[in-house]
């Protein structure tokens, strides 16, 4: 039987919005006065749900509320959620950087958090000195570090520079050194933030491999927070989805990722582009709408493989004419992996000018996608400055069809795209 090594009970965290000033002083005095009379903190009763897109009515906001979960020994728990869902706050509470407002977390064994690589490294100290410093900040003893020193240096690949001050290091080397120290940590419970998102591909592979070893071979518990759904799927056994400070879903990692993707697709369907406050835009250019058109010119979001489909983007700008317009569409599958990066510049080069207001059409003569749900992100730049950017701007569904026109439909779930191919048998 596996033991529960971490148990969160009713964790909640309240933050105050706005700046610290005289207003906070009066609230502090109020709070103190309430406490002096033996009453409850008056500000704990109020507070909005944490939805960043809507202006708050109260000065207080619950970043986390009613968080209850358990983690068993040897489990690898992936915590996913949108930006602002409370992932980082939950990590900070778990790693004791900040205290929860209410509730408690019970832990068995040593717990170590890796929210950043190379924490506390001093630029003037050498690599070796920083290994000791960083290691002890993360909770290792000096003897432990000395024992693992050669392994750490070896893993980092910085052997030649180990006696050089780290301020002379490239940023990649700093990251590798920091990760090398962290990966030789031996706590019973390891909390990891998205630190894997740094470093080159080779190093990332090494880092992920190391994480897998930690949980599978050494039987330790890992809590992993990431935006990268693929690495959550690959690394984690169980998953937890946070939404607006609440736990929206718990289950296996695959289930959690599917749930999370599903909730994103639901959101896309519901919202109009002009209401998408998370879009990045500038004052000259804005995207008003995005939709899909079939060959017959009808709009819809449900197509069959091999259909002629156009992605249409209605835009508006304040400029008389547009030049150097670059429109990028990221095509993603249900799991969040990029299927293709569509870009007007690479597909057709620059035109002399573009209409200042109108509809951009990107047409697939034959939609080369297998059955599934897909989403699009928009990234528009003008003269290398971002004019509009929005992730998950729209989604569409594809059902299986006879793409190659042979009468044999391809298998569902085997790959995402169809490639033009010529066979010969001699």
């Amino acid at each position, binding site marked *: 039987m596996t033991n529960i090594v971490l148990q969160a009970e009713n964790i909640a965290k309240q933050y105050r919005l706005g700046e610290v000033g005289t207003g906070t002083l009066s609230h502090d005095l109020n709070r103190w006065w309430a406490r002096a009379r033996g009453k409850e903190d008056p500000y704990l009763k109020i507070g909005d749900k944490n939805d960043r897109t809507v202006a708050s009515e109260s000065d207080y906001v619950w970043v986390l509320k009613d968080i209850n979960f358990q983690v068993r020994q040897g489990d690898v728990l992936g915590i996913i959620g949108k930006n602002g869902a409370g992932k980082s706050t939950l990590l900070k509470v778990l790693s004791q950087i900040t205290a929860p407002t209410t509730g*408690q977390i019970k832990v068995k064994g040593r717990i170590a958090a890796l929210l950043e690589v190379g924490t506390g490294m001093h630029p*003037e100290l050498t690599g070796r000195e920083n290994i000791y410093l960083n290691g002890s900040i993360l909770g290792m003893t000096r003897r432990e570090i000395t024992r693992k020193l050669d392994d750490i240096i070896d893993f980092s690949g910085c052997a030649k520079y180990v006696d050089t001050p780290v301020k002379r290091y490239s940023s990649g080397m700093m990251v590798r050194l920091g990760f090398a120290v962290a990966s030789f940590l031996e706590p019973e419970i390891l909390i990891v933030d998205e630190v894997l998102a740094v470093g080159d591909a080779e190093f990332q592979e090494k880092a992920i491999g190391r994480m897998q070893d930690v949980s599978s071979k050494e039987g330790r518990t890992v809590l992993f927070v990431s935006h990268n759904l693929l690495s959550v799927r690959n690394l984690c056994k169980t998953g937890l989805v946070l939404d607006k400070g609440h736990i929206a879903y718990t289950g296996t990692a695959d289930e959690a990722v599917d749930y999370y993707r599903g909730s994103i697709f639901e959101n896309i369907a519901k919202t109009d582009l002009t209401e998408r406050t998370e879009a990045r835009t500038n004052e000259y250019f804005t995207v008003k709408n995005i939709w899909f058109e079939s060959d017959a010119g009808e709009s819809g979001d449900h197509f069959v493989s091999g259909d002629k489909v156009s992605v249409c983007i209605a835009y508006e700008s304040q400029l008389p004419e547009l030049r150097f317009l670059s429109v990028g569409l990221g095509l993603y599958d249900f799991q969040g992996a990029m299927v293709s990066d569509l870009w007007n510049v690479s597909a057709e080069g620059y035109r002399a000018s573009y209409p200042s207001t109108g509809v951009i059409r990107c047409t697939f003569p034959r939609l080369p996608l297998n059955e599934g749900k897909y989403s699009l992100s928009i990234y528009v730049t003008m003269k290398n400055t971002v004019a509009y950017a929005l992730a998950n701007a729209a989604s569409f569904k594809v059902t299986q069809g006879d793409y190659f026109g042979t009468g044999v439909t391809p298998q569902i779930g085997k790959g995402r795209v169809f490639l033009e191919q010529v066979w010969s048998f001699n």
Partner: protein
Amino acid sequence: MNPTDNNDWDLVIQPEYSWRQNFDPKKIWRYRDLLVLLVKRDLVAVYKQTILGPLWFFIQPLLTTIMFTVVFGNIAKISTGEVPSTVFYMGGLLLWSYFADVVSKTSEAFITNQNLFSKVYFPRIIVPLSMALSNLIKLGIQSLMFAGFFIYYYCQGGISPNATLLLFPVYVLMTALLGLSFGMIISSMTVKYRDLRFLIGFGIELLKFAAPIIYPLSMAGDGTFKWVVLTNPMSSVIESFKYGCFSKGTFDWSHLGYSLLFLIVILFLAIRSFSKIEKKFIDTV
């Protein structure tokens, strides 16, 4: 296993801790290596890429002493009694600058280490402790220099130490704890409302002149000013140290007793306020 039983768990993270839980010596002892390394970092990093390196530990107080000798001794002509002014100032500055360094360093502990504190947990008290220790080493080096000057003037005649000088370690400990307490209280008060920060430098400077550094306590007269000076808990420590060195001045157990009492009270307050703030500060800093 009964999950409601807290004794089964190694660690319970909760909204608030008592100061006894925060200052659990076992917990702090576990991080002793970090303490040592932070001290080393402070000492090594400051003088990296300087040619004179650790020599600056000597040069800084030497320059201050020269400045004091010129300004207060030669220009303002403030009497230092029968003691040569150079060694008089140096003796007074020795413990005072340790106190001032510890206060100003630890009072910024949360703000300067904001980035570190927001990424990793360890008992926060380690940082003020490391600051007190690295300055202690600086004090050690400066004491050697003072000893050199002291022996020179002793051979010249005119100054003679006495047995109370053996209390020097006690003075150092008192200075360290006073500095830490002041610094910790200020640091926990400046986390949310930074107004106080602007007054710290000024306050320390003011306190310096309310301590018998450039003048002997006897110069303070018998009026209000003497009481002001004696209220400063560092005064008795500095004056007693000087008495031990020069056998001139005042040595009064009641003055030292007052400082000790002051120390106990303020240390208690410091631990309370520091432990109260250490879990919350990252949200407010």
